[in-house]
C-alpha cells in the first residue's frame, strides 16, 4: 500500500504543477519568435558579401554520399570566393534532421541555414511558426523570380496566412539540382533478353511480360517500408501536371481520382497480380530492395534518381527512362530539388546566407552537380561528363519533363500524414484488404481532414 500512496502523492504534485502552468496562462508555442520579416523587409538587401565583414554561418543538412561531396565542394568554392565567410557544416541523418529541425531553429545557437523537407510536414510548419525567413526580398534582389522555374518555385511557396501551399511568398529555395522518379533498367540483362528499352507505358508492359516469361523478375521491388515510388511514377503518366500540382497544393476542386491516382493504383494492382514484382516484396525493405537490384535481381526498378548510389564503376550499367504520359503527349514527372534551403529567423547575417543560397542555385553549382553524378537544374549548357553514362539518361529525363513544363511535386506533400496513408494503403492493396477505389478514398479523406483542420 505504501507504493500507491507515493503514487498518489506524485500524481497530486503533477496536477499541482499543471494547475500552476495553466494559471500562468501559457499555452504551448507561445515562445515562438516574434515575426521578423516585417521589420527586416524594409531594410535593403546587401548583396555584396565581401563587404559584410567576418561572418560565420552554421549549416545543418542531411546530404551524404555524392550529395555530401557536392555540398562540401560548394562550401569550399564559396569560401574561396569570399574569404571573410566561414561556413560550419553539420551533416545529420535525414530522419534525425527533419524530426528535430523545429527545435534546432528555435535555439539561440541553432543553424543559420538548413535543409528542410518540403510540404506541410516540415517547411510549412517552420514557416508558419516564424522559424524561417520569408525570402521574397532576396528573390527580387538576386533575381530568383526569373531563375527558378515556376513549377519548382511553387514547391517553396506558402501564402502568408499559411493556409495555402504552392503560391504566395518564397520561404525556401531549391538548389541547382533535381531528383526525379522514373524507371531504371539493367542494361546487360535487358540486352540479353533482346528487349529494346521501352519508350511508352505499353512497351514497358510488353517488356515486363516478356521478362516474366523468360523467368526473370520484371520489376525489382520491396514494399515493406517504402512502397510508393511505383505508384507516384505511374500517377504522373496518367494525370496532367496541373491536376497533380493543384491537388498537392490544396485545390479542393481536384480529387485524387482526377489526379490520376485511381488509374495508377489499378495498374499497380494489375502488375502485382501478374507477378511482375519481386516475389514476397511485402517482406523486403527499401535498402534490401536496392541492394538486390544492384546485385542483378530484377530488370526494371521505379526509383528516385540518385538513390541507387551508383559508384563510378556502376555508371552505365543501369540506365534511366522517363516515360511519356500514357496518352502519348508530353512528359510529366515527379521532380523536385532534393531539399528546401531555409534561412533561420534568428540568423544574424541573413544577407550573406541568402548570397550562399544564391550560390547553390548558380551555374557553377549546376555544373558541380553533373560532375558529382547528380542531375543539374535551372541552367542549360551544362556538360555531363562522359563517364557518367547513367546520369546522361537521367538528365535527358529531366530535360523531357522541363520541355513539357511537367514537373510535379511529391504527392505526400499534400498533408503531414499523406506518406503514412499512402504506405499503409498500398500494403493493404497488395494484401487484398482494399481496392484501388478504397485507396483513393482514403487519400481524399486524409487530405480533406487536413484541409478542414480536423487532423
Amino acid at each position, binding site marked *: *500500500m505504501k*507504493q*500507491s500512496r507515493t*503514487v498518489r502523492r*506524485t500524481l497530486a*504534485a*503533477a*496536477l499541482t*504543477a*499543471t494547475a500552476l*502552468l*495553466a494559471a500562468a496562462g501559457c*499555452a*504551448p*508555442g*507561445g515562445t*515562438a519568435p516574434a515575426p521578423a520579416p516585417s521589420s527586416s523587409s524594409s531594410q535593403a538587401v546587401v548583396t555584396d558579401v565581401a563587404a559584410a565583414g567576418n561572418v560565420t554561418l552554421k549549416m545543418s543538412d542531411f546530404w551524404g554520399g555524392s550529395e555530401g561531396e557536392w555540398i562540401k565542394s560548394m562550401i569550399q568554392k564559396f569560401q574561396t570566393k569570399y574569404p571573410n565567410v566561414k561556413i560550419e557544416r553539420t551533416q545529420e541523418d535525414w530522419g534525425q534532421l527533419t*524530426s*528535430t529541425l*523545429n527545435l534546432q531553429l*528555435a535555439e539561440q545557437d541553432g543553424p543559420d541555414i538548413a535543409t528542410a523537407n518540403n510540404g506541410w*510536414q516540415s517547411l510549412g*510548419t*517552420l514557416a*508558419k*511558426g*516564424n*522559424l524561417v525567413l520569408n525570402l521574397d526580398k532576396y528573390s527580387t534582389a538576386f533575381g530568383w523570380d526569373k531563375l527558378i522555374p515556376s513549377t519548382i518555385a511553387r514547391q517553396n511557396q506558402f501564402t502568408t496566412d*499559411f493556409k495555402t501551399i504552392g503560391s504566395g511568398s518564397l520561404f525556401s529555395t531549391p538548389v541547382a539540382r533535381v531528383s526525379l522518379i522514373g524507371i531504371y533498367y539493367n542494361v546487360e540483362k535487358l540486352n540479353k533478353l533482346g528487349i529494346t528499352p521501352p519508350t511508352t507505358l505499353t512497351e514497358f508492359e510488353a517488356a515486363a511480360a516478356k521478362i516474366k516469361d523468360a523467368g526473370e523478375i520484371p520489376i525489382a521491388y520491396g*514494399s*515493406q*517500408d517504402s512502397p510508393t515510388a511505383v505508384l507516384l511514377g505511374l500517377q504522373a503518366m496518367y494525370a496532367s501536371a496541373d491536376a497533380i500540382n493543384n491537388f498537392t497544393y490544396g485545390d479542393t476542386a481536384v480529387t485524387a481520382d482526377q489526379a490520376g491516382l485511381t488509374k495508377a493504383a489499378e495498374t499497380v494492382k494489375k502488375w502485382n497480380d501478374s507477378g511482375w514484382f519481386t*516475389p*514476397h*516484396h*511485402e*517482406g*523486403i*525493405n527499401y535498402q*534490401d530492395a536496392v541492394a538486390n537490384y544492384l546485385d542483378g535481381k530484377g530488370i526494371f526498378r521505379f526509383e528516385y534518381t540518385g538513390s541507387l548510389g551508383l559508384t563510378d564503376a556502376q555508371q552505365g550499367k543501369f540506365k534511366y527512362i522517363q516515360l511519356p504520359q500514357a496518352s502519348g503527349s508530353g512528359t510529366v514527372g515527379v521532380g523536385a530539388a532534393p531539399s528546401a534551403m531555409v534561412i533561420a529567423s534568428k540568423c544574424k547575417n541573413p544577407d550573406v546566407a541568402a548570397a550562399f543560397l544564391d550560390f547553390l542555385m548558380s551555374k557553377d553549382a549546376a555544373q558541380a552537380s553533373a560532375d558529382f553524378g547528380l542531375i543539374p537544374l535551372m541552367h542549360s549548357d551544362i556538360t555531363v561528363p562522359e563517364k557518367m553514362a547513367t546520369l546522361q539518361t537521367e538528365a535527358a529525363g529531366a530535360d523531357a519533363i522541363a520541355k513539357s513544363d511537367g514537373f510535379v511535386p511529391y504527392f505526400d506533400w499534400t498533408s*503531414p*500524414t499523406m506518406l*503514412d496513408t499512402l*504506405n*499503409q*494503403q498500398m*500494403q*493493404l492493396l*497488395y*494484401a487484398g*484488404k482494399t481496392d484501388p477505389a478504397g485507396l483513393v478514398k482514403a487519400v481524399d479523406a486524409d487530405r480533406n481532414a487536413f484541409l478542414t483542420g480536423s487532423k
Partner: protein
Amino acid sequence: MALPLAFYAIVVLVPLAQSFQYSFYAWDGVSAATWVGLGNYITFFTDPVLQSTLGHVLVLILFFSVLPILLGLLSTALITRRKLAGMAVFRFIYFLPQVLTSVVVALVFKRIYGPEGALNSMLRAVGLDALTRSWLGDFTWALPALGMIGTWVTFGFCMVLFIAGISNIPTELYEAARVDGAGPLREFFAVTLPGLRAQIAVALTLTITGALRTFDLVWVTTGGGPGTATLTPAVALYRAAFVNPQVGKAAAIGIVMALLCLAIAMAISKFSERD
C-alpha cells in the same frame, strides 16, 4: 532530501505536467497552439487506427508476459527439482537476450523472418514450403512474429528471476510436502507457486508495462506495418510527435499510456500483497 526532490521535479514532474498540458491542445510543436479540450483523448479512443493499437498491445502482452512467465515457471520447476551440472551456463544462455540491445535483437530477427531468412529456409528444408511467407510483411503473422521476439527476450529474464526466488523458499517446506506424499505437481502448486508470488508480481509488472511501451522492436522491424497491423501506442506517439507535427495528440497518447502503466502496476502490487 530537498536536492533529490528538486532534481526529480525538474526531470520527471515538470515534463509530465507539460505533457499533460500539451495533451489539451492541437499543436504542431512550433506555432501557437489551439485549445481542444479533451479532443486529443477523444481521438485516441475513437480513431479506429489508434484504437487498434490497444488491441495489438493485448496480443503483445500475451507474448511478452503471459507466455514467458508460463514457460519460465515450467522450466524453473523442471530445473530446480534436481541439481543439474552446468546450471550457471544454462542460466547465462537464457539470460543472454536480456543483455543484448533491443535494436540488435530486432535486426537479427528481421533477417531471420525475411523472405530468404533462416525461418523460411528451415521450413523449406523440412518440406513445409506451404508455410513459408514474409513473416513481417504478412497482415496475419507480423504481430505474432513480433510477439515471439518478445517471448524469446523475456523468457530468460523470468526464468532467472524465478530460480533466484526459489532459492529463498525454505527447503523444510519441500521436505514437509514430500513427507506428506506430494508429487511434483502438488509440490509445485502448494509450495513453489505461492513462494514465488513476489517474483511473479515483479515479472508481470515489468513485462506487461514493457509490452505496453513496445517501441524499438516495432520501429526497427516493421515500422508499424504492414498497413497498421503492428502499430503500437508508442509508435503512434513517436509518429505524431516527430514525423507528423501533432504534439498535442502525441502527449495525449503518452498520458493514456502512463495512466495504463500506473493502473497495471498498482493492480498487480495490490494483488501480490494480498494474503
